């Protein structure tokens, strides 16, 4: 018989999402491909979503899940607009990295 197996608490979920958020942040700082930058932003958004859902479960309040629902919609819109901008930029300069986009004129 196994004695005293710990069950995951809210704290575990919060720490996991903190680590995931930090990883996404590091990714935004070190990567130079604009598409991968967007993926790292998605990582950060998902970390925050996990925090919201963990708190919703702990506090017994469905408001956290509603917030996550809206965050998902806004994230989808953000990805669509961002990828539209990336397509427009990369069509003119196929090898552009984020460092090459330091000025506003095309």
């Amino acid at each position: 018989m196994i004695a005293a197996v710990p069950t995951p608490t809210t704290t575990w979920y919060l720490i996991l999402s903190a680590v995931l958020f930090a990883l996404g942040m590091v990714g935004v700082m070190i990567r130079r491909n604009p598409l991968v930058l967007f993926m790292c932003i998605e990582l950060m958004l998902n970390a925050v979503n996990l925090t919201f859902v963990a708190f919703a479960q702990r506090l017994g309040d469905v408001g956290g899940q509603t917030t996550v629902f809206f965050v998902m919609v806004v994230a989808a819109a953000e990805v669509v607009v961002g990828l539209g901008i990336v397509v427009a930029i990369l069509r003119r300069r196929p090898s552009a990295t984020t460092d090459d986009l330091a000025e506003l004129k095309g």
Partner: protein
Amino acid sequence: MMELIVFAAAAAMVLAGALGVLFTRHPVHAALSLILTLFGIAVLFVALEANFLAAVQVIVYAGAIVVLFLFVIMLLGVDKVEAMGIDPVRLQRPIAAIVGLCTAGLVTVAILASRGSLTARPGSGLTADAADADGNIRLLARDVFSDKVLAFELTSVLLVIAVVGTVLLARKPRKGETEVTP
């Protein structure tokens, strides 16, 4: 026991996928690692009694958003390997790693310090309907369509604006028309 195994497996998926997004050089591999992370998050959502959001996570994120990423990668032919050796700013990567570690450490310490103050309110909301199969989606729908209905409507406006803006950005200009693309 079961919960511990589920949490450990999902956390391993999440972290492995995140590290894959960070450190694979090929954008397609980064997108596939992102799918791994998003599935892990969906599993954690189920463990946290958010069944509807888990389904939405798989459909919208792993389905739509990652496929959109892959389409853009294929469309633009930006499947080149990124040169990770160049530091655009001097010492950018070590500094980024230090900042990331500091952020994770700070937030973790704050979570652990405030662990005792987080008290559950039993009987309100989620736990009451946990036995019901449709309880989660019913609660969520009641919340979205009563208190937050204005936000819901504004969301639809946001989506329309996003679609129109993207079409305007990504299309090719007709002849005799000044180009508006960046």
